[in-house]
């Protein structure tokens, strides 16, 4: 019969007030709840511990110069990680961010140097290309309903091929850029703050994160990005035009990759179609270590900034200690695994 009894027996706990009652939980469960509320605390704790450990172990680690060098080193991947974060917050993943970046740098370089376009125009065209690449990803995900992983695995290869085609596999050398398009190297320019040496690329990265922080936390668009990643069907039923949100996310990610491309020219000093081969995975690494859930809808945009810094700190610290490069990879690998394990644990939090 359809006249069903209540499926669930009465639950006393369910009847209780849902205010947080840390005292009644064990310390571990309390920690779980705390991290559930403040997911960015994990990377912050790791960063602080790593800074303290390398400060004690590695010679000259704690100099303003070295710390600012770390910031310079993570600027490009950090900016890419900002783009990656947006997509991962929607429960997607973008394997094409690195390819979009390299392709964009080639477009900017070729147009400015080989075709002699005014450099600002070449940069605008590059940004348009980056935005278009994001739109292609977005259309494939929203219109054809392809999984983001497969979509961007495909476009990664397509964009890389376009990159080789447009560049003719040639590198535009640093001297050529200095002579004909110095503006392209803008974000590599250094300036001093005390004894710290920063690049405009670092400033760009921080600005991108600040902008995304504002958009994600203080605008309706940001709340919708989280809602779409949290539960797509619920978001749809709650009246969100989820396809529009996804589309805007992929486009914004593309544009941020375009900014990263401009920044990367300054960082490397040249336009090389074979540079940043591992940038994709490095951006995902920063996002994951930064505590953004691969299942979407959870984590703070500031996490990936810290995640990128953690990787930079490990690399710098281990290098200063004279440890073989392979141990940097080894450490990064474990950081990823631990980060995801902690994310799983936090998500299991019960009410």
């Amino acid at each position, binding site marked *: 019969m*359809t006249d069903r009894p209540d499926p669930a027996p009465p639950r006393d706990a369910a009847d209780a007030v849902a205010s947080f009652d840390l005292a009644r939980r064990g310390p571990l469960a309390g920690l779980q709840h705390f991290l559930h509320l403040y997911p960015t605390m994990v990377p912050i704790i790791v960063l602080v511990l790593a800074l303290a450990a390398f400060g004690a172990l590695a010679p000259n680690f704690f100099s303003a110069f070295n710390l600012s060098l770390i910031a310079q080193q993570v600027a490009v991947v950090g900016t890419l990680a900002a783009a990656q974060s947006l997509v991962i917050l929607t429960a997607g993943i973008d394997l094409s961010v690195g390819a979009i970046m390299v392709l964009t740098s080639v477009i900017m370089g070729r147009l400015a140097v080989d075709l002699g376009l005014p450099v600002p125009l070449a940069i605008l065209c590059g940004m348009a290309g980056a935005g278009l690449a994001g739109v292609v990803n977005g259309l494939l995900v929203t219109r054809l309903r392809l999984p983001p992983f497969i979509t961007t695995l495909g476009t990664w290869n397509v964009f890389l091929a376009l990159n080789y085609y447009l560049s003719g596999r040639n590198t535009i050398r640093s001297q050529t850029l200095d002579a004909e398009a110095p503006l392209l190297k803008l974000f590599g320019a250094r300036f001093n703050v005390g004894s710290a040496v920063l690049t405009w690329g670092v400033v760009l990265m921080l600005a991108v994160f600040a902008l995304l922080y504002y958009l994600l936390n203080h605008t309706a668009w940001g709340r919708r990005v989280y809602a779409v990643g949290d539960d797509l069907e619920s978001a749809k039923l709650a009246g969100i035009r989820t396809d529009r949100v996804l589309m805007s996310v992929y486009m914004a990610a593309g544009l941020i990759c375009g900014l990263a491309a401009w920044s990367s020219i300054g960082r490397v000093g040249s336009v090389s179609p074979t540079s940043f081969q591992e940038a994709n995975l490095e951006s995902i690494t920063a996002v994951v270590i930064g505590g953004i859930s691969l299942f979407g809808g959870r984590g703070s945009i500031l996490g990936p900034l810290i995640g990128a810094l953690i990787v930079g700190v490990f690399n710098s610290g281990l290098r200063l200690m004279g440890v073989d490069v392979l141990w940097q990879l080894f450490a990064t690998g474990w950081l990823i695994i631990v980060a995801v394990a902690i994310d799983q644990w936090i998500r299991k939090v019960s009410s």
Partner: protein
Amino acid sequence: MTQTPTPVLQARGLVKRYGRVTALDRADFELYPGEILAVIGDNGAGKSSLIKALSGAVRPDEGEIRLAGQPVSFADPLQARRAGIETVYQTLALSPALSISDNMFMGRELRRKGVLGDWLGMLDKPAMDRFARQKLSELGLMTIQNITQPVETLSGGQRQGVAVARAAAFGSRVIILDEPTAALGVKESRRVLDLILDVRSRGIPIVLISHNMPHVFEVADRIHIHRLGRRLAVIDPRAHSMSDAVAYMTGARLPEGLAA
């Protein structure tokens, strides 16, 4: 029962086919001001297709829907919502990781006044929190302490409460509740039923879809029995027993005065 002649929400001859399956077969529907109308029916009777058509989730192939006497046609749930029809889905359509306040305003966030809101799209979080808190306390749901706590930290009944409060806060004309007690225990069901009665006392008519006969008979003013894709009858719960209703909806018996 005394009722105003114009139904708040009315449907005539709704038809919805999925391939060779006819989910709605010239279905009629009326909801009058200030009432709780329960919709019951066996699984596959077309209840959910009827509700989806009324809430804009599906577009009927034929038939007409009128809201306060005016013909309406909804392309998506958003349009139905804008017209004042709020639906609380069985899944609740809440985002678990977002706060109560975020969830209540999902898709209709409040912006700050002035340049911050107009140009930078900045949300007016204090106003949203205040409004959410006010709506929850109006419905006696202020056992929830913290309006910014994630919905997933709430119990099932509290989540249902948030979803109902969201509908009641914005549903100016009609609230549709799809199986609101199906996932709840006895005590929590009790609260949700009280909540439903409370919403009605504010003058908002409610469509209640439920399998739970005791709940239906407790709160409903009229019961719409759906069978084989159309309305079989509307009965008065005070004049019929639960077993009557079950017999009608399963086809074991026909309501009196209804020629087959």
